[in-house]
């Protein structure tokens, strides 16, 4: 194993089709037109010295080190800013160039500290490399004059010197080491799109400045790490590198946070993780990252992590640490007892969207083949189950249609109920880059998300709808497209069922769906709807990206269908730049759905009642499978309360915190006799558990994650599991204890089993992934290299299906008691229920959930910014602090759900999507009133949590 060094070509690749041939140092090189001489040289293996150029950002031409000579041209042009031309004869090393480069380096080094031996970048410093490359031996200017290097100069305070900025928890800014190459500034602008950095002053006074000469933490910086990655010196350095030293080997793996699925190099010293660096060949992230994937991995070593299995008889007892063998034997005997006593269907399990495909596959296999029922469900139930259902109905596949690269070809982007710059930041950056190039943006969201207006990006239309009226707004958009005749008739006739279209068109054209009518209850001005519809239908390549603001409604599935209708009606399917793209919340939520985690579906979305599919698995597994769908999560809880469901194996999910109506969840769990929680931490669900099996992190196992673009990415083990076993091994040992004869020795064998049984994965194997890097399903004989874009020559189901989308208002209504509508969302620095990110330094950005409330509503209730408020719905109440902002409209309040002490889901109700039971998180009628402190429920719960987390023989952690 060695450190993976990626070649830096100096300037981005050219996309030109035309090829140009030139000669560099006597070698003939052929490259696409528009390529820089620097890049062409590197492609030929000739490294031109450089400092300010790096291939993540455009050429800048400031360092004057990459100069070359070109026969027949005057002077010494910089190779980064000079494009190739046919027949050029370029020299990168001449006597004249050597002299110039030495002179330039001399100037650089005359204002740079000479502490290389003790410098954190020692071994990874481009300035050092270039000094070596140009043969710098002497600095004639000395170090005594004006400089930025020394705190005191000739005994006096040096006003030019600036101290280190250590405000960011993950990296430091040491201005004394800065060579002002602007790479950080350009990375922040071009790659991340935040524009948080600038060069202040001019000439010798030039300094990199976050914000207006602020500390990094106070500035607009979002801590994505692009600047740190771009810095050629130790000026911007990860604190982990300063603490540990340079890494010695690395492996490419996949981030375990959101559904973008960024590829990272995990850079290691032995088994210690030094840093995570985004991988430029990663086809989802193209070398970019966000604060979570790049830095927030500290939870893996957090003191709260549980490393030994634990058992207890009653949930009021303290935990008792046991051996793995005891734990497995206990669970197996309990599950057997329950099934004997209460029937085969009395137990079930929940797969995790945080675990690998292989692990998820094993859990559902354990339930179907071992428990002998289909009581398996997954957390996708509470997020994207309507996507699976809706897109399955309309197109024939339950997944997004595009790859992330596709956004580079979009002309109009519609973002519905998603907040990419917070929830999917790396995709958000790629989207912003396209918007800066001129693509138009339509945002449909009750809240003014960052994308509506952020430096250099402004939405053409923001439709601030009332929560719960998605279907009405989308049908109104369709109304405009149909009645104004701006649909794509040729596409529809060729690809879709024309008579179904006519039926749908007649439906949406009804006058009650006109924007003027829907405005009355959606709150979106008709003119905005008309403008947005025209732009989407006629603005070129139109792409729709959506999130949980679409799915987590009582009409979630209907909304997904309405989105599919819009895309089909305008011909925006089946080529780059268009499509319907769910932004998946979790790293492997796509994969967990693919792997047969739903009670009615075997892997590959094939119904459990389908005899041929069952036959495949029955032959492979040597069992008879139940052909009836099992229980969904809410049904399991209902059954538990009724007394017919008694035991559950929950892998990597905190249903108590993430599922709606917390009181109902806790009642269900409390009614069970054997709750097995398999997780990194004693999560909230574990308060009700009888057995705790410690989990492993993504750094500790091999496997694959499937991201939102159906991309199967490898996860590679870089350290041994601290708890002893990877999660797939735990499931296997549990299965063995229950009498199943499983003998997997590596996750690749599980993937082989998936490939052998599931047609859309037929071509996938670890060897193939090793060659390809990653691959997008379907990957089989028909699509040997995978499918970046789906439905290219026709829909998977045959003809695209238009479905009527009647708006039915949710039963959750505002009234005199609960006059406000609560909707929920995420924030950049925290992830989901926060189990991981709350255990990292990310809490400096967000250490509590706040309730966003419009100034008007706040004033009416006498609430000031920062006040404690009581948030009550008919389901329950909680307290948190208010944040007064006009991001939300009057009548709407908003909060995040990252912190367990807030328990936003105490408030949410048990209404859910009509088709899939996906809970209606995004609409709850609430009242807000001033408060002095925690509610009774919060106090009780805190006491319960404290008692439930006691471990026998261990002192309670002093808080």
């Amino acid at each position, binding site marked *: 194993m060695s450190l993976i060094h990626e070649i830096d070509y100096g300037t981005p690749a050219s996309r030109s089709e035309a090829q140009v041939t030139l000669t560099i140092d006597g070698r003939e090189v052929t490259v696409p037109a528009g390529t820089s001489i620097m890049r062409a040289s590197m492609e030929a293996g000739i490294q031109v010295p450089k400092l300010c150029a790096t291939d993540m950002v455009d050429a800048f031409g400031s360092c004057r080190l990459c100069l070359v000579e070109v026969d027949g041209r005057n002077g010494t042009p910089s190779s980064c800013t000079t494009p190739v031309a046919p027949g050029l004869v370029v020299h990168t090393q001449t006597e004249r160039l050597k002299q110039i480069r030495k002179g330039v380096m001399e100037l650089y080094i005359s204002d740079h500290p000479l502490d290389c031996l003790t410098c954190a970048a020692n071994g990874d410093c481009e300035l050092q490399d270039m000094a070596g490359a140009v043969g710098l031996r002497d600095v004639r200017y000395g170090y005594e004059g004006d400089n930025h290097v020394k705190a005191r100069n000739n005994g006096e305070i040096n006003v030019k010197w*600036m101290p280190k*900025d250590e405000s960011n928890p993950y990296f430091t800014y040491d201005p004394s080491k800065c060579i002002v190459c602007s790479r950080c500034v350009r990375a922040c602008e071009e790659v991340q799109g*935040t*524009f*948080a*950095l*600038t*060069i*202040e*002053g*001019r000439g010798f006074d030039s300094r990199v*400045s*976050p*914000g*207006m*000469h*602020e*500390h990094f933490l*106070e*500035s*607009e910086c979002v801590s994505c790490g692009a600047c740190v990655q771009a810095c050629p010196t130790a000026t911007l350095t990860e604190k982990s590198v300063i603490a540990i030293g340079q890494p010695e080997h690395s492996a490419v793996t996949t981030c375990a946070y959101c559904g973008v699925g960024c590829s990272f190099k995990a850079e290691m010293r032995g088994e210690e993780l030094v840093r995570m660096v985004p991988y430029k060949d990663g086809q989802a992230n193209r070398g970019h990252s966000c604060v979570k994937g790049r830095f927030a991995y500290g939870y893996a070593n957090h003191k709260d992590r549980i490393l030994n299995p634990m058992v207890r008889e009653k949930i009021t007892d303290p935990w008792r640490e046991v051996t793995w063998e005891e734990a497995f034997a206990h669970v197996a005997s309990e599950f057997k007892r329950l099934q004997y006593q209460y029937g085969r269907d009395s137990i079930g399990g929940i797969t995790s969207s945080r675990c690998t495909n292989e692990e998820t596959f094993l859990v559902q296999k354990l339930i179907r083949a071992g428990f002998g029922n289909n009581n398996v469900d997954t957390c996708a139930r509470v997020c994207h189950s309507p996507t699976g259902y809706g897109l399955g109905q309309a197109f024939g596949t339950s997944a997004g249609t595009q790859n992330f690269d596709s956004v580079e070809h979009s002309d109009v982007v519609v973002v519905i109920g998603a907040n990419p710059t917070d929830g999917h930041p790396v995709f958000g950056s790629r989207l912003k880059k396209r918007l800066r190039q001129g693509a138009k943006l339509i945002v449909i969201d009750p809240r003014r998300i960052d994308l509506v*207006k*952020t*430096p*250099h*990006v*402004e939405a053409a239309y923001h439709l601030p709808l009332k929560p719960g009226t998605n279907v009405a707004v989308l049908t109104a958009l369709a109304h405009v497209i149909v009645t104004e005749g701006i649909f794509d008739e040729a596409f529809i006739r060729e690809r879709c069922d024309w008579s179904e279209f006519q039926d749908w068109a007649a439906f949406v054209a009804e006058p009650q769906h006109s924007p003027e009518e829907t405005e009355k209850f959606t709150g979106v001005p008709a003119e905005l709807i008309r403008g947005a519809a025209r732009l989407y239908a006629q603005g070129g390549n139109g792409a729709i990206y959506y999130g949980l603001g679409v799915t987590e409604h009582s009409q979630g599935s209907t909304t997904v269908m309405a989105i599919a209708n819009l895309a089909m009606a305008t011909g925006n399917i089946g080529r780059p730049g268009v499509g319907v793209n769910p932004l998946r919340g979790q790293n492997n939520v796509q994969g967990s759905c693919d792997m047969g985690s739903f009670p009615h579906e075997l892997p590959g979305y094939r119904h459990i009642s389908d005899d041929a599919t069952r036959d495949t698995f029955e032959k492979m597994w040597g069992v008879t499978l139940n052909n009836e769908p099992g229980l969904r999560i809410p049904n399991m809880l209902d059954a538990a309360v009724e007394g017919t469901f008694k035991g559950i194996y929950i892998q990597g999910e905190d249903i108590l915190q993430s599922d709606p109506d917390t009181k109902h969840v806790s009642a269900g769990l409390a009614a069970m006799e054997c709750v097995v929680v398999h997780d990194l931490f004693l999560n909230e669900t574990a308060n009700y558990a009888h057995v705790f099996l410690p989990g492993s992190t993504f750094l500790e196992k091999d496997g694959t994650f499937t991201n939102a673009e159906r991309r199967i990415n490898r996860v590679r083990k870089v350290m041994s599991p601290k708890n002893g076993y990877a999660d797939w091994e735990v499931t296997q040992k549990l299965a063995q204890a229950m009498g199943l004869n499983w003998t997997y020795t590596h996750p690749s064998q599980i993937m082989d089993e998936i490939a052998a049984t599931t047609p859309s994965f037929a071509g996938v194997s670890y060897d193939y992934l090793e060659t390809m890097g990653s691959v997008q399903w379907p990957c089989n004989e028909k699509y040997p290299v995978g499918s970046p874009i789906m439905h290219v020559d026709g829909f998977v189901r045959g003809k695209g299906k238009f479905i009527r989308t009647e708006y039915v208002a949710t039963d959750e209504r505002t009234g005199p008691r609960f006059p406000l509508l609560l909707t929920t969302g995420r924030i950049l620095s925290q992830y989901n229920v926060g189990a991981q990110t709350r255990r990292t330094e990310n809490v400096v950005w967000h250490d509590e959930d706040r309730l966003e409330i419009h100034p008007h509503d706040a004033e009416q209730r006498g609430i000031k910014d920062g006040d404690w408020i009581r948030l009550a719905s008919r389901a329950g109440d909680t307290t948190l602090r208010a944040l007064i902002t006009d991001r939300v409209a009057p009548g709407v309040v908003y909060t995040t759900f990252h912190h367990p002490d807030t328990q936003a889901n105490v408030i949410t109700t048990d209404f859910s999507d009509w088709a899939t039971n996906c809970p209606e998180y995004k609409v709850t009628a609430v009242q807000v009133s001033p408060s002095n402190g925690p509610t009774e429920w919060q106090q009780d719960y805190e006491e319960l949590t404290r008692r439930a987390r006691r471990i026998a023989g261990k002192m309670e952690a002093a808080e």
Partner: protein
Amino acid sequence: MNVHVAGGIYAERALSIIRERKHLEGPMLPILHAMQHEFGFIPEEVKPVIADELNLSRAEVHGVVTFYHDFRDAPAGRHTLKLCRAEACQSMGADAVANRLRQLLGIDFHQTTLDGAVTLEPVYCLGLCACAPAAMLDDEVYGRVDEDCLAEIVAEVRR
């Protein structure tokens, strides 16, 4: 390091200055000139206002403002005296003039006299090389600056 200015006495006026000019092509410099004209300097608190109105980041506005020496971060004295320090003027004795001026005013470059009468700034070429050494008092240029000329300037600013 944090240099936010408390209060909002400039922000409101700044907003109307910005809105009158934001339709211009490349509106930032006209806006900054108007602010400097109005306030005598570019108050820190108007930078976020400009950023918000032009849909830029605070950093970008800060970068532009600090790039130009003419945009001041604090008000100048009643008069601003700029003395050319570029090559042609240096060769014609600008250094001696500078020393004499420092003596007469009792301040160094970038400083303002205690009575607030004048701020002394270096400038790198006024385009008056033929009449070096050159100076500029407020909007008026002086060529071939000598002892008499300096006396006149000092009398003018002290008036």
